[in-house]
C-alpha cells in the first residue's frame, strides 16, 4: 500500500492550509505523491490522498486524468520528453525522438524493459529559441539537442 513519507505528509498537510480552499491542494499533493511513488500515480495513491486530505476520490481523479504531467501508468526512472511542437519539429525533434525510441527499443510513451527510460513527445516547452529541447523528469531543460548529445546522455543516465 502506498503511503506518503513523513515529509510528504507534512507537505500535503501544509498545502491544505495554504490556499483559500482545501481543494486547491490537490494539484501540489499529486505532484508530491507522484514523486514519492516512483514517478506515477497509482490507484492506491489516490485512495491514500483521499484519506489524508479528506477529499473525495472523484475530485482527485478528475485532476489526475486532466493534466498530462501526472503519469497514469509506471514510467521509467528517466522520463525523457522531447518537445515536438513547431519550432522543435523544424529543428528535427521528431527524428530525434524516433532515434531515441529505436536506440532503446521502445515505442512512443513506452518504458524500457529494465525500467530505466520512458520516451515521449511533449508539446511546446517554451524554449523554442533553443530548439530542439527536452526535459527529463522535472529537471531543467536540455537545449539545442544534437545526436551526439543524445548518445552521451543515454550513456550517462544509468
Amino acid at each position, binding site marked *: 500500500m502506498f503511503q506518503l513519507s513523513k515529509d510528504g505528509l507534512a507537505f500535503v498537510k501544509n498545502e491544505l492550509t*495554504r*490556499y*483559500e*480552499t*482545501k*481543494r*486547491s*491542494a*490537490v*494539484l*501540489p499533493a*499529486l*505532484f508530491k505523491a507522484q514523486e514519492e511513488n516512483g514517478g506515477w500515480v497509482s490507484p492506491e495513491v489516490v485512495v491514500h490522498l483521499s484519506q489524508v486530505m479528506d477529499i473525495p476520490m472523484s*475530485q482527485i481523479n*478528475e*485532476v489526475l486524468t*486532466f*493534466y*498530462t*504531467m*501526472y503519469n497514469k501508468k509506471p514510467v521509467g526512472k528517466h522520463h525523457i520528453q522531447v518537445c*515536438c*511542437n*513547431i*519550432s522543435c*519539429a*523544424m529543428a528535427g525533434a*521528431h527524428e530525434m*525522438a*524516433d532515434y531515441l*525510441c529505436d536506440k532503446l527499443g521502445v515505442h*512512443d*510513451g513506452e518504458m524500457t524493459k529494465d525500467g530505466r527510460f520512458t520516451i515521449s*513527445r*511533449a*508539446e*511546446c*516547452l*517554451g*524554449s*523554442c*529559441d*533553443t*530548439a530542439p529541447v527536452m*526535459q527529463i523528469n*522535472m*529537471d*531543467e*531543460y536540455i537545449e539545442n539537442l544534437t545526436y551526439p548529445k543524445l548518445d552521451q546522455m543515454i550513456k550517462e543516465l544509468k
Partner: protein
Amino acid sequence: MAEIKLLTEHYHKPEFQTLDGYKKNGGYDVLKKAFKMKPKEIIEEVKASGLRGRGGAGFPTGMKWSFLPDNGEPRYLLCNADEGEPGTFKDRLMMERAPHQLIEGMIISAFAVQSKKSYIYIRGEYTKCLSVVRKAIKEAYDAGLLGKNILGSGFDHDMDVYSGAGAYICGEETGMISSLEGKKGQPKLKPPFPAVQGYLAKPTIVNNVETLAAVKYIIRDGAAAYKKIGTEKSAGTKLFSVSGDVNKPGTYEVPLAYPLRDLIANECGGMKGKLKAVIPGGSSAPILNADESNKVNMDYESLAAAGSMLGSGAVIIMNETRCMVDMLNVILHFYHHESCGQCTPCREGTGWLEKIVSSILLGRGRPQDIDLLDTIAQNMKGRTICALSDAAALPTISFVQKFRDEFEFYIREGRSKVTGQPIKRKNIKGSHHVEMHH
C-alpha cells in the same frame, strides 16, 4: 527606428535576479512612487497609456481593471504565467532574469485594483521559473515588500505561486481559475467575466506576465511617455519571441509597429535560407506569406489588417525548405491534443482536421479534402466556449488558402512539393488522444 528597452534593459545582468541587484538598478523605487498615488489614479494612468494585454487577446488593461464591481468583496489578482502557446517563451525569460520586476509590477497593479492576494500561475514544466520566483517572493517578504503594511503604505498584500500540471487550456483565464481552485482546467462561458466573477466566484483580474511588468514602466515614466512609443492603438514596447529559420532566435523587445522585416534583419541576424512564411503571433495566428511578411508592421492593427494577429508575440519563421502540409499537421496535432473536450465543434473539429491533414501526409488525401478542411474550420470559428477552437481553425484556413498548391500537389502525387519526398514520420496520425474522445 531607435531601439527602446524598458522591460529588458537589465536582462543581461545576473544581479538583476536578486533583490539587492534589482534595487541597485532602481528596483522598487516605482512602487514607492505608486504608493503616493491613489489607486484610481494608477488605473487612470494605465488607461491613458493605451497598454493592451500581452497574453494574446490584446484587451486594454486599464479598461479591464475598471470592470471590477464596487461591492466590497475581496479581489484577486492572477498573473498568467502559463505560457503554453507554441512559439512563446518571453514570460519564461522575464521570470528567470527579472523576477522582482514582475513582483514589483504586480504589487503596483494589486494596489491599483485593491487586491490583497495574488497568485502567479506558472506552468508546471517551468521548474526553474518556479524556484526563481518562489525565492524572489521570499526575498520580498523578508524585505517588507510583501505582507502587512508594505513600506508603511498601509497596504497589505500576499503573493503566492501556483504550479500548473501540463495543460495548455489552463492559459485561458477561466480555465486557469478552475485549475487554481484545484479542478480540471476547463474554461467557462463568459459573461460573467472574471473581473466580476472569477476565482472562488470573487472579482478577479487575470493579466499576463509582460502586461503586469509593463505597468511599472507606465507609472515610472507616465502614461504620456509610454503612449508615445508605438502607434495610437498599439502603445508601448513588446517582447517578441522569435524562433525558426533565423540566425539568432531569441526574445527581443522593440517598439510596437516595428517592421517584421527589420526584426528579422536587425534583431534576428537575418534569415537562414530564404523567407517563405511567418506565423507572427503564436501558432494560433494565421500564417503570412513572404510578401505579406515583408510589408507588415508588428502591431495589433497592422497585423489584423494583414489578416493575422499579434497574439502573444511569438514569431515563427519558416524558410523555403518547409513543407506547409507538414507544418499544419504539427499545429493541428497540438490543438487536438489540448482541446478540453467540452464543445463539440472543438472536440470533434480539431480531431477531424488533424486526421485529414495526416491522411494527406500519408498519401491518402482526396481532392475534396482541401475544401473540406476549409469548411470544417469555418464551422469551428466563434461557436465555442473559448478561443481554442479558433486557434485551430484560423491557421487551417490561412494555410490552405495561401499554400493551396502544396496541398494539391501532395494529394495528387503523394509527396511533398517542397522536399519532393513523402514526409515520413512514425507518429503521423498517431495521436493517442484520438481514442480518448471516442
